[in-house]
Each structure stands twice: as structure tokens, then as C-alpha cells.
């Protein structure tokens, strides 16, 4: 191998290595200190099996969050409504999407009906707000203490596609717990 090649190769390899290191460092810094990097897909809301518009349901129809997420004030999970509940309302109000301006409304609402004999399949919603396995988050006490859903979830009412707006890292949780004199014992969330 000629000297000139080495002369070129060394800085190139060095540069690539530096870039890789910089990328890894960037990733860890972001992962640790702020929101997960947008490149991993945490930034924009995922595509859901039904293009469910919170805008229409909250803003136009004026529904309260707990009208559908009805166990948020009593249980761990906020609760995703059963398909039957979706169907019930749509049957009751006779909203089939025909009357909507949106071109997709009718096809999306039709997904609720499913097989006429077997009934609707459960909808495999894609999780937007996901905490690590070792965190046991419970909605109930937060709602009972009078926090609004938007404190953590942001202005869902204006989101066409739901996305995560708050980083929901441990520091975020603990800061808020301290500010509100909520327990900060580790086993409040970790068990």
C-alpha cells in the first residue's frame, strides 16, 4: 500500500469514526436529557388503524375526555373504549361520515362495523405514550387531584393525529411531584 493512500485513508477513517462517535453521543445526550430524537419516530404521531380525529370528537362534538376514556379517574389506565361503545354512539347519533367534509370519514367509520356475523374486531391502536416497563403510572390519582389531561398529553383537542408533546422522563415526573408535594418515594412508581 502506497504512502499516499495511507495519507488519504487515515483522515477519512478518522473523520468517519468521529462522525459515528458524534452521532452516538448526540443520541445518548438526547435520550438522557431531552425528548427522544425525532428520527426514532417518537416525534410525530404514528399512523393508527383508524384515522380517529380527536379534533372532531372533542372540539366539534364537545365530548369530555372521560366520556370515552372513562376509567381515567378510577383506574391505572385511562381506558380505551370498546368498539361497541364507538358503534353505539355512531348508531345513536346516526353519524356515518356521509355528512362530513372529510373525504375519509365514511370509510374510516365503516371500519367499526366489521364482519356482520362475527362482530367487529378489536382495534389494535398503536401506543403513543409509552413508559418503560419498570414504571407503573396510574391515571386515577392525577385526575382525582384535579389535573387536566392536557397537563401531560397536551392539547389533544387540536391534534388530528395524536402525538407525544411532553418528554415524560423521570425528571419530568419527579419535578412535577415535588412542585405539587406528591410522594417521591421510589415505590410510588417503581415496583
Amino acid at each position, binding site marked *: 500500500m502506497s504512502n499516499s493512500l495511507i495519507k488519504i485513508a487515515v483522515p477519512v477513517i478518522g473523520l468517519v469514526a468521529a462522525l459515528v462517535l458524534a452521532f452516538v453521543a448526540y443520541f445518548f445526550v438526547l435520550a438522557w436529557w431531552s425528548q427522544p430524537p425525532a428520527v426514532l419516530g417518537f416525534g410525530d404521531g404514528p399512523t393508527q388503524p383508524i384515522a380517529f380525529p380527536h379534533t372532531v370528537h372533542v372540539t366539534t362534538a364537545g365530548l369530555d375526555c372521560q366520556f370515552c376514556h372513562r376509567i381515567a379517574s378510577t383506574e391505572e389506565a385511562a381506558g380505551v373504549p370498546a368498539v361497541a361503545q364507538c358503534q353505539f354512539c355512531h348508531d345513536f347519533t346516526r353519524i356515518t361520515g356521509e355528512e362530513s367534509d372529510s373525504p375519509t370519514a365514511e370509510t374510516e367509520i365503516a371500519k367499526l362495523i366489521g364482519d356482520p356475523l362475527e362482530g367487529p374486531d378489536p382495534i389494535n391502536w398503536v401506543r403513543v405514550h409509552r413508559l418503560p416497563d*419498570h414504571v407503573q403510572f396510574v391515571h386515577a390519582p392525577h385526575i382525582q387531584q384535579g389535573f387536566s389531561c392536557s397537563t401531560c398529553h397536551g392539547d389533544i383537542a387540536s391534534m388530528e393525529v395524536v402525538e407525544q408533546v411532553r418528554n415524560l422522563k423521570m425528571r419530568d415526573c419527579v419535578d412535577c411531584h415535588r412542585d405539587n408535594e406528591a410522594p417521591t418515594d421510589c415505590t410510588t412508581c417503581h415496583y
Partner: protein
Amino acid sequence: MATRTQSTRADHKWGMVIDLDRCTGCQACVIACQSENNIPLNDQSAFLDGRAIEWIRVERYWEGDYPDIKARFLPVLCQHCDNAPCESVCPVYATYHNNEGLNVQVYNRCVGTRFCGNNCPYHARLFNYWEPVWPEDLRNQLNPDVTVRTRGIMEKCTFCIQRIRRSTRGGKQVEDQAFNPACVQACPTDAMTFGDLNNPDSRVSQKWEDERAFRVLEALGTNPSVKYLKQVDAHA
């Protein structure tokens, strides 16, 4: 005896009394615990390697020789000591005593030095030597309220803290015997009693003062939150 306690979370001191005169060693507590707490399946090699994980286990002691021989059973779980030897040796503060009298293991802090396990005179702390594996179908049974522990960390009995949290959440008042850890709930002879030692009317407080009550390795001064009631020896 259902008495209401006017208490908030920090007012609790959870404790347990195990009546050895009622205990038959039947293992119902052991399996109920494994089901509730997502304990990895103890396969044959776990026993052979000495690495079976049982948050509560039934120890058997022999006394005497055949034919005047007696097996005694001692269900051993984390004793939730007030002076816990495990807590002071953890370099990362992953185990500590909380204000409800619980000895707590924080999985996400644990780095697996195993100092705590080595220092526990009751051998109540168990180390995950392997990533826990369940066949895909069996995963459906896992309890969503309990973290699945990964390889390389210590775990132990929590007094079913997920049930404590659920019942006392937000400073909820809780009646004595309104909930129980999985082992106590299963025990077919009612040998185990769990409750709040700060509530003088609770069943566990009353048994706490029983004349048969003793603590295991009391001389070590660990001051456990678990007491045992001595088995009564009738003449043979």
C-alpha cells in the same frame, strides 16, 4: 373485624404474622406468589444450579431421629427488617426502607452487585442470573401491575406492593383485611395474617402480641416486620 383507620399512606406500617401451628407446608403460598409477581418459571436446571427464585419458600427442618422425628416448616419471605442489613451495603441506593415500613427494591437502580443478597441473613433476596423467558402463549398470564425483572438485578418479596398501592392510592382509607398479598390470600389454613401494625385493631396487630410470637434470628437485631407464632408441641 372491620375497623376503619383514618390514615394516609405514610401512616401505615405493614407487617405479617405467620402461625406455624397452622402451616402445613402445602406450597400454595409459593405458587400464588409466582403467579402474582411474574416470577420466572423455575425449571429443573434452576433447582439443580441452586438458582430457583421463590420470593416465599417453605423451609423444612428436621428434629429428632426416626421414629421420633418431626419436620417443621418455616415459610421464609423478605422480613422487611427495620434495621435491614441489605440496605446499608447497596452502593447505588437501590434498596432502602420506605415510610410504610417496607424494605424496597428499586429494579431500575439496581446494578447487580449482589452485596445485599450476601448480607441478608434470611436469604430472602434472589438474583436474576438469566433473562426471564416465557413461551409466547404463557406471557398472556403476566400481571401488568408488576415489572418483569431483567437479567442482572436482585429481586425479593415486596409484600405485594402493587396491591398495597392499589388499595391505598391517593390516601384512600383502607379497612383491615380489605386486601392481602397473594400468599396470604391463598393460604388454605389461614396461617398467614397481613395488615397495618399502626392500626391497633387490625388482626395482625393483635396476633403481633401473641405469647407464641417470635422473630427469626432475633438476636441479630434486624427487627423484622414478620413475626412467627411458635408451633405448639403436644406430647407425642
